[in-house]
């Protein structure tokens, strides 16, 4: 041990090896401290964030859309249903080469590339949540995607419940369409992107009930994306079922009867105010909205001059024409201005000062009583009667019959119509016009139907009911609506009896509504022709045709109101449609009477 540097003594100071060992020890400890610092940084300072990342690594959320509730008619027939449909979705995180995949997809399914890019632009690129691209793929398209699966990473076809309609236009305005939520609806926070929501009609009104609650699964996956186990599962809760007051059979009859006409039909149950059928023509096709409605198709629908999206039964306001004579007659009789025995001249023209008002034909019918004037719908008679009654009482009775105010039906966008203000300064010319349902007077077909219901029942104004009840999928009652009276027209029974008899006469006693006459069932009704332009000519089809009826006359069950836009005369254009509808409703009775001979 005589070697230099390793000799006796101890302690690093005297032994260079130990000194150097000390340096190595300090160096080692320093590195350990650095490691410790990094551990502290990762596990304590960044721990929460990295824990979150590890959760996101292992958990995939797979949403499951809840089927929308089903709408039934009063007899339990489905008006809309659901069926499984294919939805094309993209999972951004799994798309290795986004642009290539999108380009391939665009060519394969003929979807504009811009549309795909746009839908993806709003979601983070590392999201595992599928983004819906297009709904309602055809089998052929699904087959194409499956065939190219390997070339299309991140492209998936999901199966989701989708609305299906027994016939695409049936009750289109009533039921309403379902469409992906708009940006604005999403901002309200109750929807997620790509959710379907009712956008009009009952689908919109009852969306909260119909929507149900989407479920889903949280799945733990391993590094290669294989599912290991389901961490949490929430079954989708199907939407509630809605039982409406509609009668699908009558609705079908009504829509068939309207054919290619533009206009509206309302069928009410006279005994309850239930809406049995309601249509607005032209209609739109509901299933256009559910699948992939392109921008072009949408614009075509919105810009269509026929306005197919408009629900004419509640949103269009028309002059009531001669249908309004019911109100004028009621006012005159109840106020005692006239009795059924008094007669007035029914000449071809009526002279007021310098102005000439015409009847609708050139025949001089001589002196008529009120019954005949109603049956013949004589304008010149009613000009004189109106002037005798005065504008203010006529307006008062019009309001009593529910005109000039919304009916309160459970549909959005109902119009109130127009009735001259109570104490407005009236000019005689206005009064003359109002007497035959022209001038400052506007009604909706639904208001007219409600008014006819009052005549049929002797005064009851129903609140038109569309929804009977809403039931959860397990049968629990969530909501129910009894049939409600919203007003009562207080006329003497004699006046009601007179009105009812004269409406019977319009159809059955040589009146203007003879075209609505049916064997086996007595129909009561009133025709109307709403002039659009002064001095327009109904024969050239410039006027709106009305026919408002109830049946059977002695025991009213249904009210039917038909409006044909630019149909011409009510008796010629609207009454035959009403007849066809009533025929459909009372099929057995009509058939039975035919058998009797």
């Amino acid at each position, binding site marked *: *041990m005589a*070697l*230099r*540097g*390793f000799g006796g003594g101890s302690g690093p100071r005297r032994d*260079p*090896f*130990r000194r*150097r*060992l000390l340096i*190595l*020890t300090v160096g*080692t*400890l320093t*590195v*350990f401290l*650095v*490691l*410790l610092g*990094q*551990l*502290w940084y*990762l*596990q*304590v300072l*960044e*721990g*929460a*964030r*990295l*824990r979150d*990342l*590890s*959760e996101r*690594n*292992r958990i995939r959320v797979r949403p499951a859309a809840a089927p929308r509730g089903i709408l039934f008619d009063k007899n339990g027939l489905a008006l809309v249903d659901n069926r499984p449909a294919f939805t094309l979705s993209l999972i951004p995180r799994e798309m290795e080469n986004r642009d290539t995949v999108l380009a391939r997809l665009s060519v394969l399914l003929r979807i504009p590339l811009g549309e795909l890019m746009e839908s993806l632009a709003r979601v983070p690129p590392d999201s595992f949540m599928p983004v819906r691209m297009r709904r309602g793929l055809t089998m052929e398209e699904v087959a194409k995607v499956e065939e190219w699966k390997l070339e299309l990473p991140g492209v998936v076809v999901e199966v989701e419940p989708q609305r299906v309609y027994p016939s695409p236009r049936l009750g289109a305005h009533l039921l309403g369409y379902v469409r992906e939520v708009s940006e604005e609806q999403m901002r309200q926070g109750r929807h997620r992107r790509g959710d379907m929501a009712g956008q009009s009609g009952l689908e919109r009104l009852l969306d909260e009930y119909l929507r149900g609650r989407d479920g889903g699964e949280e799945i*733990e*996956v*391993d*590094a*290669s994306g294989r599912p*290991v186990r389901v961490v949490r599962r929430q079954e989708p809760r199907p939407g509630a079922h809605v039982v409406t007051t509609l009668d699908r059979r009558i609705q079908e009859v009504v829509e068939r009867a309207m054919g290619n006409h533009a206009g509206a039909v309302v069928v009410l149950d006279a005994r309850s105010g239930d809406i049995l059928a309601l249509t607005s023509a032209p209609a739109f096709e509901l299933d256009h909205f559910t699948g992939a409605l392109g921008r072009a198709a949408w614009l075509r629908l919105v810009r269509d001059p026929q306005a197919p999206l408009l629900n004419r039964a509640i949103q269009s306001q028309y002059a009531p024409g001669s249908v309004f004579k019911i109100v004028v007659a009621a006012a005159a009789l109840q106020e005692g201005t006239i009795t059924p025995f008094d007669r007035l001249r029914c000449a071809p023209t009526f002279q007021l000062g310098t102005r000439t008002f015409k009847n609708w034909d050139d025949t001089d019918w001589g002196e008529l009583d009120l019954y005949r004037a109603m049956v013949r719908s004589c304008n010149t008679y009613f000009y004189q009667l109106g002037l005798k009654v005065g504008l203010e009482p006529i307006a008062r009775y019009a309001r009593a019959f529910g005109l000039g105010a919304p009916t309160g039906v459970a549909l959005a966008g109902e119009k109130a119509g127009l009735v001259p203000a109570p104490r407005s300064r009236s000019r005689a010319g206005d009064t003359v016009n109002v007497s035959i349902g022209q001038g400052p007077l506007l009604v909706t077909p639904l208001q007219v139907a409600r008014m006819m219901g009052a005549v049929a029942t002797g005064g009851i104004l129903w609140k038109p009911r569309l929804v009977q009840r809403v039931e959860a999928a397990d049968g629990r009652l969530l909501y129910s609506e009894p049939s409600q009276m919203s007003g009562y027209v207080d006329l003497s029974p004699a006046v009601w009896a007179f009105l009812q008899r004269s409406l019977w006469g319009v159809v059955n006693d040589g009146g203007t509504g003879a075209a609505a006459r049916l064997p086996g069932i007595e129909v009561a009704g009133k025709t109307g022709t709403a002039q659009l332009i002064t001095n327009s000519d109904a024969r050239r089809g410039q006027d709106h045709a009305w026919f408002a009826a109830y049946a059977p006359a002695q025991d009213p069950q249904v009210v039917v109101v038909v409006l044909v836009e630019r149909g011409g005369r009510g008796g010629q254009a609207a009454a035959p449609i009403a007849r066809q509808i009533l025929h459909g409703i009372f099929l057995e009775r009509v058939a039975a009477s035919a058998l009797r001979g």
Partner: protein
Amino acid sequence: MFKVDRRLLQNVDWLLLATALALVALGLVTLWSLSPGRHGSGAVWRQLSWLGLGLLALVAVASVDYRNLARAAPAFYVIGIGLLLSLYVFGRTVSGARRWLPLGPVTLQPAELFKLIFIVTLAWALTARWANPPARATLAAALSLLVVPFVLVVRQPDLGTALVLLPVFFALLFGAGVRLRELGWLGLAGLAGAPLAWLVLRDYQRERLLVFLDPFRDPLGSAYNVIQSKIAIGSGQLLGKGIAGATQSRLAFLPERHTDFIFAVFAEMWGFVGALLLLAAYAFLILRGFEIAGAAREPLGRLLALGVTALLGAQTLINMGMVMGLLPIVGIPLPLMSYGGSSLVVTLMALGLLLSVRMRQSL
């Protein structure tokens, strides 16, 4: 040769041995927890049998006088180089690297064994013609002892094992009293050779180095390992997720979780507190190694103890550094804990050498 001397037994460092065995046990538990049940226990049993073999080797190495071992160093060195060369003929290729030599039912990683041979040979070379500081000729000899195996191992390719030879080499030279200036020149020469090394590197090795410089170069590719490893460690937070909750490890988001990244598994399961204790255990081992080197009275024992400690320390620190994202990913297992027979047996043999020096310090 195997005559048991009472004084030898008195000087066995039981605490060192116990700490090392505790770390092996922790490694086994971690291994088992990665895939509990019958299916995964295969690895545990295999590792246990390697442990048995390793303990036998430890006892064997410890019972031989290290001075006798050093005398046989040239022979060992030649055999070691021969084994490395034989890989080019008999080597089994696993994922692109020829590191394994099939020996009957098992495979051997000659490079692992060579680390030990390298320490013994270098210590022998530095002390055979002893001078402090060593003569230039000695230095040149030492350098050539390094270069040949280094190139052979890098070409396997096994960058990690080759790199570990460097700190061992410098630690031994440093301990042998080489002047700092000369060490500095050697270091500079090494740095100057680095661009040459770049040419020798395989593509994936280059990629790893680049990724270390810019982790988000390829987050799902080469950088995936280190990102997932950081997530695993960090998500353990203060107290860990426990065995069942360690999703990063158990769902295989963490790569190489049985071997190189086993520290991340442990840190995910037991959190900062567990990792701190683990770090303390390794620090204790290394400091104890330095202490043994310092306590030895003659150069060969000192340098052997220092070399073994440097090997252990360098592997531990580099492994943890790369798992925590402080160093580039170079495949270096964590001594004692990582799954792998060669590594465990060689580490235990190295500890045997350390124990041997300690046992004979007062002879």
